[in-house]
C-alpha cells in the first residue's frame, strides 16, 4: 500500500533486461486489453530452504496477460520460484523468503496477506495431474463451493464454462458424475486446468504441466494455453525448450538459483545475451 508510488515508477521501467518494454512486445501478436503491466514483480527476492538459497535475489516483472515460460536445468529453482508466487512453499516447514514479491501492488509475503485468498487469485496446475477422487463435476465445483457458491444452477454454469475454456467439455459432458480418476492423463490435466479456471484466477501457474503426458495430450494442453493467452497471465515452468518457444511470449532462464536471462522468447532463443543461456539452449548441458 505504501509502495504504490514506487510501484508506479517501476511500471515505467520495463523489467526484463532493464531495456524499454516496447522492444519486447512481440510484434506479430496483437496487444491485449490490460496487458503488459507488471502483474507480479520481484525485488531482491530470495527463497531459502533452511540455509540453502534456492532462488537468489531475483528482480523481475511478470507482465499481465502474457505467457511467460521459465526454463532451466533441474534444481535451478524455477519450480521453487513459481510455487513462491502463490505461497505453496508455505507447506515446506524450512522454507522462507527475503526481499519482496508484489502481486497487483500488494506484498505477497506481507503481514496482512491472507494466503488463502491469494491462492484464489493465483491458480496453479501441477506436474502430475491431481484430480480429487471425486466426480468430474465435484472436482470443478470444488473451488466455487469453497468460496460460497451453493446454487446448483450457478455451479452447473461454472462447471460448463470452465470445462469449455479448458476444451474438455465435449469429451466429458455426458459423464460429469463419473470419477475423475477414470479420465486419461491428458484429460485429467485439462480437468485440473478447468478446476483452476473455475475459481476465476488472474494468474495461472503451470508447473511442468505436460511432463507426465504423451505427445498428443501435450499438444492439447499447448493448444489450451494458446486459447487462454490474453485472458490470463500465464507462467509455465517447462524443461522442454521447444515448448517454451512455442507457447510463450517471454522466457526466463534460471541457472543455479540465479535469473540469468529474461527476455522476449524469440530474442532469448535466437540471440541469447548470456553465454550460459546459449550453452543451455544449444544443449551443451541440461
Amino acid at each position, binding site marked *: 500500500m505504501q509502495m504504490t508510488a514506487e510501484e508506479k515508477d517501476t511500471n515505467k521501467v520495463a523489467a526484463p533486461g532493464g531495456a524499454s518494454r516496447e522492444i519486447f512486445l512481440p510484434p506479430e501478436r496483437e496487444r491485449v486489453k490490460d496487458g503488459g503491466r507488471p502483474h507480479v514483480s520481484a525485488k531482491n527476492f530470495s527463497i531459502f530452504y533452511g540455509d540453502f538459497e534456492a532462488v537468489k535475489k531475483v528482480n523481475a516483472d511478470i507482465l499481465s496477460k502474457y505467457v511467460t515460460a521459465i526454463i532451466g536445468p533441474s534444481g535451478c529453482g524455477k519450480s521453487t520460484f513459481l510455487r513462491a508466487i502463490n505461497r505453496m512453499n508455505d507447506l515446506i516447514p524450512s522454507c522462507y523468503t527475503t526481499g519482496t514479491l508484489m502481486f497487483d501492488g*500488494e506484498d505477497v509475503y506481507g503481514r496482512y496477506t491472507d494466503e488463502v485468498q491469494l491462492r484464489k*487469485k493465483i491458480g496453479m496446475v501441477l506436474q502430475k495431474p491431481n484430480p480429487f477422487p471425486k466426480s468430474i463435476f465435484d472436482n470443478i465445483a470444488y473451488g466455487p463451493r469453497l468460496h460460497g457458491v451453493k446454487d446448483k444452477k*450457478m455451479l452447473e454454469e461454472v462447471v460448463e464454462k470452465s470445462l469449455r475454456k479448458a476444451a474438455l467439455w465435449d469429451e466429458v459432458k455426458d459423464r460429469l458424475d463419473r470419477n475423475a480418476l477414470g479420465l486419461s492423463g491428458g484429460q485429467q490435466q485439462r480437468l485440473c486446468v478447468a478446476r483452476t479456471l473455475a475459481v476465476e484466477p488472474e494468474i495461472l501457474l503451470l508447473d511442468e504441466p505436460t511432463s507426465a503426458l504423451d505427445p498428443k495430450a501435450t499438444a492439447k494442453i499447448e493448444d489450451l494455453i494458446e486459447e487462454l493467452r490474453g485472458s490470463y497471465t500465464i507462467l509455465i515452468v517447462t524443461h522442454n525448450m521447444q515448448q517454451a518457444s512455442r507457447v510463450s511470449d517471454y522466457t526466463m532462464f534460471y541457472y543455479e538459483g540465479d535469473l540469468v536471462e529474461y527476455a522476449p522468447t524469440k530474442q532469448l532463443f535466437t540471440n541469447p545475451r548470456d553465454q550460459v543461456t546459449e550453452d543451455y539452449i544449444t544443449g551443451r548441458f541440461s
Partner: protein
Amino acid sequence: MPNATLDSGKKPDAFVLTPEKLRRQRIAKFFGEGFLLVVASFVAIVVLFIFYFVAVDAIPFFQQRGFTEFFTSTSWYPADEPGEFGALAIIYGSGMVTIGSALIAVPLGISAAICLSDVLPFSVRQYAKPVIEMLAAIPSVAYGFFALVIFAPLLQNYGGPILMWAWWLIAGPFVLLAVIVVADLITSGDGGGSERKTIRWTVTGVLGILALVFLFWVGNALNAIQILSGTNALNVSLILSFMALPTIVSVSEDSLQAVGRELREGSYALGATRAETIVKTVLPAASSGILAAVILGIMRAIGETMVVWMASGNSSHIPDPWYNYLDSIRTLTATIAGDMGEADQVTGSARYHVLFAMGLLLLVFSFICNLVSERIVVRQRKILAGE
C-alpha cells in the same frame, strides 16, 4: 461476470486483510489448533493418570509391608489374617511363561518374517498376511478357552506322545541337516575326487546313525513323561507364543523390508545364496528392529491375562525343578484378575493394594520395554538413513 461470480455479493476479494480481520483469523487459528492440541495431548494425560492412579494405590502396600517380603518370599496367603504377601513365585511364574513363549515365538516369528519379506512371492504373501492378522485378532479369552478346554485335556492324556512327536518334527530335520553340514566340514580338507566322496558318505552315514540313536533316545524319554495337569506353564507358553507371534512377525518384517534392495543385491552379486545373503547381510542390518520386535512380543506375553488365568493352574509356587515347564504356575496378571474379586470390597486393605503393586510392576516393566524398543527403532532408522 454477471452469471457466475464467486463472491456472491461480497466485496471484490482483496487478499490483503485488514488488521481487524487478521486478528480475528489469528484468534480463530489459536483456538482451533489449541483444541486439536488438547485432544492430542489427551493420550499423554491418560498415561500420566494411569501411572498416578496405579501408583497411588500401590504405595500404601509398600508403606505397610515394605519391599522385602513382596520381592523375596514365596508365601502368598493374602486371605489369611494377617496375610502373607510374598510375590516372588508369582513374579517367577510371569517370567517363566514369558521366557517360554519367547523361546517358541522368537525363532518362529523371525523365520516367518524372513519368509514373508524375502522368500514368498507377492501373490502368496497376500494370503499369508490375513492369517497373521487373524491370529492377532482372536480374543485372548478365546485362546484361554482353547487352552483350558481343548488343549489342557489333550496334554494331560497324551502329553508324552505329543512331546515325542513335537521333538521328532522339530528336532529331526535340524539334526539331520547338522549331520550333512558337519560331514561336509570334516571332510572338506581331503582334496577332491572319488576318494573324498566315499569318505564323506561314510562319515555322513556314521554321524547319521548316531543322530538317529540320539533322536530315538530323547524321543522315548519324552514319550514316557506323564503330565499330571494339563494346565501348566508349557500349555500357557505355547498359547502365549501364538499370541505374541503376529507382533513379532509384523514388526520384524517391517524392519527387514527397511533394509533395502541394494544391500541384498550387493550380496547376491558376490555369489551368496539367498540364505547366506539373509543371514550374513540382511539380518545383521535389521537386527535392532528385530530386537524391538522381540521386546514388543515379550510385552504382549507378559501383559496377557486371560490365557494365564484360565490355563496356568494358578498355583503360586516355584516349580520343582525350577525349569519344570510341566508344573502349574501363577502369574502377576492372573493374580490381579483373580484376587480383585475378593479384595475390592475392602478397599484400603493390604490385599487390595498388593494387587496395585503388582499392576505397577507390570506397568513399569512395559514402560521400560517400550522406551527401549522405541530407542532401538529410532536408532535403526537413523543408521539406515545414513546419519
